[in-house]
């Protein structure tokens, strides 16, 4: 039975001021609508240009169930093509990354395309004379995405023709990318060391919600934190710690710490958690590197960059950024109850190798399928996905800190444990999904 298809008001009704309906997490129908009308309408992170340094380099990525190719062009630009032969639909490449040479050649019937997708040649050309091929989509080559923005080498796409413009959509939260990129004295990041990939059997919004959940570490991560504290017992507070201890022990911070770190919400679901400080603020300082940053960016900008070690910035709905360590998580919805989570590490060019080590170490400790920190998170997300099916209560509470004055306020700052950051995500979700279903601009 269909309750949501063709019914944007029913979607809007899933998000109340201080609660969200369980169908937002559980319903296969809602998921299909999200893939068609929400993911396509908003801006998603696709990849980083450093993945495709040479002409002809490509990476294959799936977004909203559609296979795409991010391709470096001969002129240095990066384009995104649908990975679908215009003839019969074969994927042009089936490796996840590689180099196409100077053109793509379909393995099925040898139709060829330039790197920008334009048709190059096909066998038995005379057989198409007098047919309508040239006048239809099948004759126009590989479909290129029209809405692609490369922001400081981060590649974002909007699949649908209708939707918000890039700058208006992200607004002030783009400063989180600036912060990470400017940690390189050369202003340049390289995605390096491979990507840790996790399958989590929960709804993608639950995972994103948890990225802004400051109240779970105390109880969720108790076992990992207590084990770390037990092993580090007896060491003086100011004693230099092994990197792993430096990164795990701060998970033991209390409610007060997380509350005081503060958060900021932006329109369209974006947020920065930890606008004053975060669990990443206490990493050992590196005087020579900080001098290099001052030389590159000036004292004031260098100070700004180094002061801001936000816990997480969320570029809703696909990307979570940690400026320090240089790590991102990419959120890829696969089904209502299945989400791919990728953890990427960046090398900040011109910065000490220690920063890259921090990024890799943090991702490995906290976002690997073998992480003892993530084990408890993932277990609880999967537990929620099952638990929500039970009982008469249709609703998930987002009440903490709710104040009617927050409605329609746009960009706003709050204390770190206020669930405003989550409410803000769901409000944007319902707004864009409903607007997408209505075909609204």
């Amino acid at each position, binding site marked *: 039975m269909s309750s949501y298809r063709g019914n944007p008001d029913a979607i809007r009704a899933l998000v109340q001021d201080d609660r969200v309906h369980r169908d937002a997490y559980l319903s296969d129908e809602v998921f299909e609508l999200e893939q068609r009308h929400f993911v396509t309408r908003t801006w998603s992170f696709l990849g980083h240009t450093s993945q495709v340094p040479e002409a002809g380099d490509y990476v294959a990525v799936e977004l909203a169930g559609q296979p795409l190719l991010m391709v470096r062009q001969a002129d240095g630009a990066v384009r995104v093509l649908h990975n679908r032969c215009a003839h019969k639909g074969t994927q042009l490449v089936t490796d996840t990354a590689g180099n196409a040479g100077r053109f793509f050649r379909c393995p099925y019937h040898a139709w060829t395309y330039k790197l920008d997708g334009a048709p190059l040649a096909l066998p038995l050309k005379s057989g198409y004379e007098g047919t309508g091929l040239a006048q239809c989509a099948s004759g126009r080559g590989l479909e290129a995405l029209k809405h692609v923005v490369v922001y400081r080498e981060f590649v974002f796409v909007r699949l649908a023709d209708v939707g918000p413009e890039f700058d208006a959509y992200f607004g002030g939260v783009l400063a989180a990318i600036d912060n990470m990129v400017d940690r390189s004295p050369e202003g340049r990041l390289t995605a390096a*060391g*491979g990507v*840790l990939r*996790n399958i989590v059997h929960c709804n993608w919004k639950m995972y994103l919600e948890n990225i802004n959940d400051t109240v779970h570490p105390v109880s969720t991560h*108790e076992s990992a934190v207590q*084990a770390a504290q037990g092993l580090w017992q007896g060491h003086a507070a100011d004693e230099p710690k092994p990197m792993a201890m430096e990164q795990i022990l701060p998970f033991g911070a209390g409610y007060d710490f997380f509350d005081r770190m503060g958060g900021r919400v932006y329109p369209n679901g974006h947020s920065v958690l930890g606008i004053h400080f975060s669990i990443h603020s206490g990493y050992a300082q590196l005087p020579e590197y900080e001098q290099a940053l001052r030389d590159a960016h000036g004292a004031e900008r260098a100070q700004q960059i180094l002061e801001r070690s936000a816990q997480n910035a969320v570029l809703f709905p696909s990307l979570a950024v940690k400026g320090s360590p240089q790590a991102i998580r990419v959120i890829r919805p696969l089904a209502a109850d299945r989400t791919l989570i990728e953890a990427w590490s960046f090398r900040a060019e011109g910065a000490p190798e220690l920063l890259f080590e921090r990024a890799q170490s943090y991702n*490995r400790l906290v976002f690997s*399928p073998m992480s*003892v920190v993530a084990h408890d998170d993932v*277990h609880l997300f999967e537990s929620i996905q099952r638990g929500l099916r039970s009982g008469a209560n249709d609703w998930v509470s987002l009440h903490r800190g709710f104040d009617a004055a927050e409605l329609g306020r746009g960009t706003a700052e709050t204390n770190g444990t206020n669930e405003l950051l989550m409410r803000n995500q769901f409000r944007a979700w319902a707004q864009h999904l409903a607007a997408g279903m209505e075909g609204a601009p």
Partner: protein
Amino acid sequence: MTTERDIFDPIVLADFVAEEAALLDAGRFDEWLALYTIEGRYWVPLAGAAQADPHSHQSLAFEDRLLLQLRIDRMKSPRAHSLRPRSRCQHVLQRSRIDAVDEAGRSATLSTPFVYIETRGELQLTLAGTCRHRLVHTDAGWRMCEKRVDLLDPDRAYPAIQLFI
């Protein structure tokens, strides 16, 4: 009396590898950890057998004794939520191949193809690959300098892997 020849006997070396896996399968993690040297490492490279080192590329796990101890201590906590229900594992080992023996340095390196099964409630995860043990002989017997686990599919998207492969 044990002679030098006995120490390097392929059966003695392969028995060490089998015993190491048996301790994991039995959940005897403290005894397992004691098989490591002080500098010992447990390493699951993200690029599998193709990976040269643990620094230039990511790993699913790269742990010294401190981190291994943390992992084991956590599993003893009643608040290790992900271990409810508790995970169990089974290593199915192929015969170990001896890659190198250095009698002067009292060390040996072995490769052991394996299938690893981890179960949790109704769920089952199967992994395949090759373990590479770098062993050194001490007064207490053979010990691991490094256990490296090269997965067949190291960069696949995985659900949680709760125990030690």
